[in-house]
């Protein structure tokens, strides 16, 4: 029996294990360092990625998406659980170091945590451990009993990840339990020896364990204390070294992943960082063909993914049964990295990714809508990877036949349809329209401050030409001095770039940049969000660019546009956010404000709206691609509108219009659902002073365009 000791002295129960603990420490830390070093091997061989600029913005990302867990509440249950676990871990960081040091130096006290502060911190950690433990139990039950659908792994993507997830959750639970048991045994021992007892937080895990241990013998308590410590130590280091082999590596990597996250929305990464456009011809290979063609940040993404499934849960391609599920783009690459860059032995990287890791259709299935990236709590990037993989396929000539024709037509005619250049401005030459709203061509003889950039679909598609005419009428109505490039305009190349044909994109861009500069315009307006995004993010040194919805919204505010009440008060409208207006450019409110300014217009929101909008099927080249799918995205979207109780879908993108109008027919909802572009609706509803004749002209044109289909 040991004698009663001074209150300040703690029984050195761990002293006998010091050597053992020291060895475990060294083994654990060395092992972890080695594993991380091996994990860094592919990153060091990867492509450059220049992400060392703007440290403040980057720290901001870490604070918002890391510390403040910004994305997590979007998934209520899992998100809140994660916030509790994360908060618990943050509280336990100092304690973890303290506990590790105690094994070697038992009387160690964390600097700054002696006395009162220490007691407060201990209370906090008691509860933190309890909360984390409970969260683990809930998470395990969730995984095993409730099985949320998004965790399921379709057969084609391999085996279920449940066992691994539960194993990791259980390990953390064991760690919390061991830590609590350690505190409890010490406190119980202190009590039995009449020492000052460290106060345990009431109803916390250590507190409850202490109650259980209260009547145990001192030697049993000593064994429990020692055993709990050993269990904690072994579990801690096992977990530390096991994390880099699975989804929990994000605990370490997420900090870096958030810091180095992409800062600019709507952009596409350059073919090679640090290589200017002029020198691109010297780059031997474009895009990603083998694993080491990814940038180090993209590899870090693979390591950081927590397999939460939110990307795929929001992916429209996945929803309609296309062979793409973003989650597996990442996890397959991670598995590849683990397999080909082993802990021991030589690494291998010669296998082409397409045909082995990814299928061609998988990579062409993406519409670059950005729903996955919007949802990812760790800011994993997908679009840039998809584009890079496509660049690789394009470079190898590996392009579906359905896309080759439009690409060739874009090269020779500047539009994907192979239509004559001279007919590009035909939409503005419809007889009745030209009489009421003549549109200037900024060809050097005519000048205007505002350039209306029309882009291909609005220029050539019979139905979409109506959006062009409505846009022109709105600009005319608000007194804008505007013109178009006419035959000098070529396709913006927005989808050309996102489908990986960078060289063709550059040719289109350079042509348009020259034409825009030659026009002398000081401002660009477009009604096509894809053109908008291209002009804003893909082109350089352009005058300010506005989408027509922004123009309308500001002119509604200024009072230049006022609306007549809607004729049919029974119609219920809903606004469908185009991906390249909403998610990629954050324009959510302007179109809604315009709708709400129309007297008598009833508007409802679809459950998927704003940054969770559901892609209509994609624009540009996506319209030529023939995917394997169970249902069209547009059909799903139209059903969502019907579920919301709407019978008019308003959108602000010509491609959305094509897809949604087709989908209405496919879904058999003709007569029950209609679609209209925001510009068309504005033009239809705007109040004109004594311009009766013009209204008549519009009606005729609309009839003509319907008949023309």
């Amino acid at each position, binding site marked *: 029996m040991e004698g009663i000791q001074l209150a300040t002295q703690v029984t050195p129960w761990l002293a006998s294990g010091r050597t053992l603990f020291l060895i475990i420490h060294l083994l654990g830390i060395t092992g972890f360092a080695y594993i991380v070093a091996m994990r860094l091997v592919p990153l060091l061989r990867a492509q450059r990625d220049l992400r060392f600029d703007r440290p403040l913005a980057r720290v901001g990302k870490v604070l918002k998406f890391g510390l403040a867990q910004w994305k997590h509440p979007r998934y209520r249950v899992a998100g809140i659980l994660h916030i509790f676990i994360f908060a618990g871990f943050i509280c336990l960081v100092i304690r973890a170091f303290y506990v590790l040091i105690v094994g070697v130096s038992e009387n160690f006290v964390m600097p700054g945590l002696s006395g009162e502060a220490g007691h407060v911190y201990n209370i906090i950690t008691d509860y933190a451990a309890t909360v984390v433990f409970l969260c683990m139990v809930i998470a395990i039950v969730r995984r095993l009993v409730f099985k949320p659908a998004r965790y399921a792994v379709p057969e084609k993507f391999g085996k279920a990840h449940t066992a691994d997830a539960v194993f990791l959750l259980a390990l953390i639970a064991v760690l919390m339990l061991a830590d609590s048991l350690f505190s409890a045994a010490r406190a119980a021992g202190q009590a039995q020896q009449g020492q000052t007892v460290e106060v345990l937080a009431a109803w916390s895990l250590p507190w409850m364990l202490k109650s259980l241990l209260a009547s145990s013998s001192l030697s049993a308590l000593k064994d429990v204390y020692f055993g709990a410590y050993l269990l904690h130590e072994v579990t801690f280091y096992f977990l530390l070294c096991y994390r880099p082999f699975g989804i929990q590596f994000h605990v370490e990597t997420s900090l870096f992943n958030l810091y180095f996250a992409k800062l600019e929305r709507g952009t596409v990464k350059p073919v090679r960082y640090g290589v200017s456009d002029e020198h691109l011809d010297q780059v031997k290979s474009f895009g990603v063909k083998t694993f080491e063609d990814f940038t180090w940040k993209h590899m870090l993404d693979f390591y950081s993914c927590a397999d939460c499934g939110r990307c795929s849960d929001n992916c429209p391609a996945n929803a309609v049964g296309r062979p793409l599920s973003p989650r597996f783009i990442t996890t397959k690459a991670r598995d590849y990295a683990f397999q080909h860059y082993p802990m021991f032995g030589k690494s291998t990287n010669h296998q082409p990714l397409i045909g082995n890791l990814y299928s061609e259709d998988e990579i062409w299935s993406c519409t670059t809508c950005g729903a996955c990236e919007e949802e990812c709590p760790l800011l994993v990037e997908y679009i840039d990877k998809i584009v890079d993989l496509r660049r690789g396929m394009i470079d*190898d000539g590996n392009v579906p036949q359905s896309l080759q024709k439009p*690409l060739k037509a874009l090269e*020779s005619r500047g539009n994907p349809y192979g239509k004559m*250049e001279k007919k590009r401005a035909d939409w503005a030459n419809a007889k009745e329209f030209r009489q009421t709203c003549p549109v200037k061509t900024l060809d050097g003889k005519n000048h205007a401050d505002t350039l209306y950039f029309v882009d291909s679909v609005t220029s050539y598609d019979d139905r979409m030409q109506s959006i062009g005419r409505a846009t022109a009428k709105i600009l005319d109505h608000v007194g804008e001095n505007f013109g178009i490039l006419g035959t000098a305009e070529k396709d913006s190349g927005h989808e050309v770039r996102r489908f990986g044909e960078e*060289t063709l994109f550059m*040719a289109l861009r350079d042509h348009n940049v020259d034409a825009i500069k030659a026009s002398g315009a000081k401002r660009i307006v477009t009604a096509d969000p894809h053109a908008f995004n291209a002009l804003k993010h893909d082109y350089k040194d352009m005058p300010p660019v506005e989408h027509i919805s922004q123009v309308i919204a500001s002119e509604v505010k200024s009072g230049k546009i006022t609306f007549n009440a809607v004729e049919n008060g029974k119609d219920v409208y809903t606004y469908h956010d185009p991906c390249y207006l909403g998610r990629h450019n954050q324009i959510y409110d302007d179109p809604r404000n315009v709708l709400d300014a129309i007297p008598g217009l009833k508007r409802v929101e679809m459950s998927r709206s704003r940054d969770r909008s559901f892609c209509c099927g994609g624009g540009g080249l996506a319209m030529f691609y023939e995917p394997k799918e169970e249902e069209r995205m547009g059909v799903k979207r139209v059903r969502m509108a019907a579920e919301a109780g709407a019978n008019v879908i308003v959108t602000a993108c010509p491609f959305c219009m094509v897809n949604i109008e087709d989908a209405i027919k496919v879904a058999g909802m003709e007569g029950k659902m209609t679609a209209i572009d925001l510009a068309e609706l504005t033009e239809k509803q705007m109040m004109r002073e004594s311009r009766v004749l013009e209204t008549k002209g519009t009606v005729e044109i609309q009839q003509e365009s319907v008949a023309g289909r």
Partner: protein
Amino acid sequence: MEILVCARRVPDTSENEITLNSAGNDIERDELVYSVNEPDNYAVEEALQIVAKAGGNVTVVTVGGEDDEEILRREMAMGAHHGVLISDEAFNGSDGRGIATILKGFVQKGNYDLILTGVQAEDGGAQVGGMLAAMLDYPFASLVNSIEVLDGRKLKIGREIAGGNREISEIDLPCVLSIQTGINEPRYVGMRGIRAVASVPIPTYGVSELGIDPGAVGEAAARVKRVDYFLPQLGKGAEMLEGSREEVIDKLVELVAAKGGLK
């Protein structure tokens, strides 16, 4: 295996609106965009796939003018090893037989195991391949939609015949085959690929290099002469079926059955 593909530059039908010129003897060519004749492109792809397996070289040849170099570069960007332009004023106005005569001259200068042509030129008459084979006294097969290289200088070829049936034949090398579209999926060639071969020299051969009797080719020797060129009158437009969905379906079934489309 040394493979020669005879290719031709034609106005791209999917990217042009074909109209007659004012004289009515040709189409308006001012704003046309051209591309490689589509079946020829399949022939080049097939040749590339054969040499990828069996080894060898692919040469693409065209008879034309300076502008036609464009398609040679495109096919070289695809992977063809050599491009050759056959150009001479004496060749202008040649008919199919004239072109075959010119190509025969070129073939005899080389040592080709296999000569491929597209099944037909989009602005031509599917005649050069057969005539070239006859002039060379080579075996010939048309409408080929599969090729398998056998041992002993033989090929196993599939041909599309009426009714969607396929015929499999063996043919001795050297031979001439005309290639049907759909035999493969031609790889994509972008601007980047074309730029990469932009400065590769393309040899040009004329009458003297090929040793051809100028009297046997060109307009004077042509025995087939185009006398007119016109766009057929547009027929009656599409027939719109009206009624409920079921009625429309019934009418459609009836119409298709009446034309022998349903048995």
